[in-house]
């Protein structure tokens, strides 16, 4: 297993994609946070200082949820990490050297999650780096611990990590790289929203990966279909999707031929 892990980690570090998508993930988080703060800069009657919502812990937590704003890119990385093996047929040397296919899948999931952790920590750090000096300049004290800002950043980081794991699972089930990337983006950006607007069906909405991750992080969203998950429930549902996809990916890999 150690050999499989070392090999998988080398696969990550010998390509440019992992830091390309890291930069994207981090940039989305940082720009979202900066955008949210600056959107409150202007406005208000002339001559009167606008009200400053960032003095409140609830607004600070909302800002911290943006640590997961780039989560979809962590998912895309996970999908590509797995599907590349089939697209470029590197699955052949991979499974020739380690024919115990379960080990390869386990190593892939572990390394995918590890990359997810890096994306997650970097995103949280960038949001913290944007908000700390900016809010400090306004004279707002950030309530890291008492106001739950740090905990929210942590939950955002967990969401990013889980998304990377989801991506590896999707890639093991749907080996076609383009189909897997387009399909998962379409699901998260379009199909989930279709669920939300159909009566009755929308009761399932909260249990889909995107809304579950939202509940985990605590992004304020209206309860759709009358179901509102708590942070812990959202996290468990999201993890459940990751486990389900990982098991499906494992089954597919064990049963299907390597091209």
């Amino acid at each position, binding site marked *: 297993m150690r050999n499989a892990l070392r090999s998988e980690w080398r696969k990550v570090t010998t390509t440019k994609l992992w830091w390309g998508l890291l930069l994207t993930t981090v940039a989305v988080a940082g720009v979202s946070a900066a955008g949210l703060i600056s959107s409150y800069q202007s406005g208000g009657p002339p001559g009167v200082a606008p009200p400053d919502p960032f003095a409140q812990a609830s607004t600070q937590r909302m800002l911290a949820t943006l640590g997961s704003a780039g989560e979809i890119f962590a998912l895309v990385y996970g999908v590509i990490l797995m599907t590349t093996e089939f697209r470029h*047929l590197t699955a*052949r040397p991979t499974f020739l050297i380690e*024919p115990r296919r379960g080990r390869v899948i386990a190593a892939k999931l572990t390394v995918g999650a590890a990359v997810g952790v890096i994306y997650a920590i970097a995103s949280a750090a960038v949001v913290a780096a944007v908000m700390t000096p900016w809010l400090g300049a306004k004279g707002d004290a950030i309530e890291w611990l008492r106001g739950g800002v740090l905990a929210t950043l942590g939950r955002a980081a967990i969401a990013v990590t889980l998304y990377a794991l989801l991506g590896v699972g999707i890639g093991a089930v749907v080996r076609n790289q383009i189909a897997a990337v387009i399909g998962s983006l379409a699901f998260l950006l379009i199909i989930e929203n279709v669920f939300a607007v159909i009566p009755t069906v929308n009761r399932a909405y909260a249990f889909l990966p995107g809304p579950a991750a939202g509940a985990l992080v605590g992004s304020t969203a209206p309860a759709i279909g009358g179901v509102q998950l708590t942070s812990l429930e959202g996290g468990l549902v999201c993890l459940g999707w990751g486990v389900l996809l990982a098991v499906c990916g494992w089954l597919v890999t064990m049963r299907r031929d390597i091209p």
Partner: protein
Amino acid sequence: MGTGATPVVAHGLTKDFGKVRAVDNLSFSVEQGSVTGFLGPNGAGKTTTLRMLLGLAAPTAGTGTIGGRRYAELSDPAHVVGAVLEATSFLPGRTARNHLRVCCAAAGVADRRADELLDLVGLAAVARVPVQTYSLGMRQRLSLATALIGDPRVLMLDEPANGLDPQGMAWLRQLMRRMADAEGRAILVSSHVLSEVEQVVDRVVIVARGRLLYDGTLRDLPGGQEGVVVRTPAVERAVTALAGLGAHVVASPDASLMITGATPSAVGHACWQAGVEVHELRTVGSTLEQRFLALTADPFPPGPGR
């Protein structure tokens, strides 16, 4: 590998893709210290057979074993079998050296093996260049290096000569011969071009449409339509003269005869005795390539109306 166990054995290997039978009840073996050519036209099922032997594809029926064990049961396969399956299994943006180091890590082999192999296959100078800039011949060399990661006793090379220039081809032949003779490895090398491997193989296994057609030495390859061509201005008299030979004689419009079932000397003697003027006498259809083509020819070639 167990002592005495045959390096590679295919036993009744069969593979269906939907309704198409890609490999049909194929049995053959590869012995230690020998080079076995695995020949057949494109689409004959060679790569599918190798994938089954290597545990990448599950056979519909039959078994493939390496040293008496199925591939999946090998505890350290990289040190037992090295395989190349077409020269395309690389990430384009990764360098050759990094590709080999990824494999070294997976096989539990020291990283310096990557550099040794790059030297061996002549890619040391371009080791740190992304593989996407490589020519097909360079990719073949890198594939071969990948197969040799664990210094295995058995090599399975799928079309390794594809894309190699004549020097590369000569180099590959020498390397295969050395690995079989001096190092005692068992080598199974596939090709759809007989002439690529003709000089290096000890035995050949010939397949077409998924079926075994021939398993043996090239020398014993069935002769096909070996014949003698005689060109003469006296066609009718020649036919009469040759009638006594018991051979099959066909006259063609350009004043020549095609004789099968008689040696050139017997044909020449019969003509001389009958006083038939002969302008040309030669044998045809006896080259290895022609015998190979005759053996593997598709009885239902694609054409109009199909």
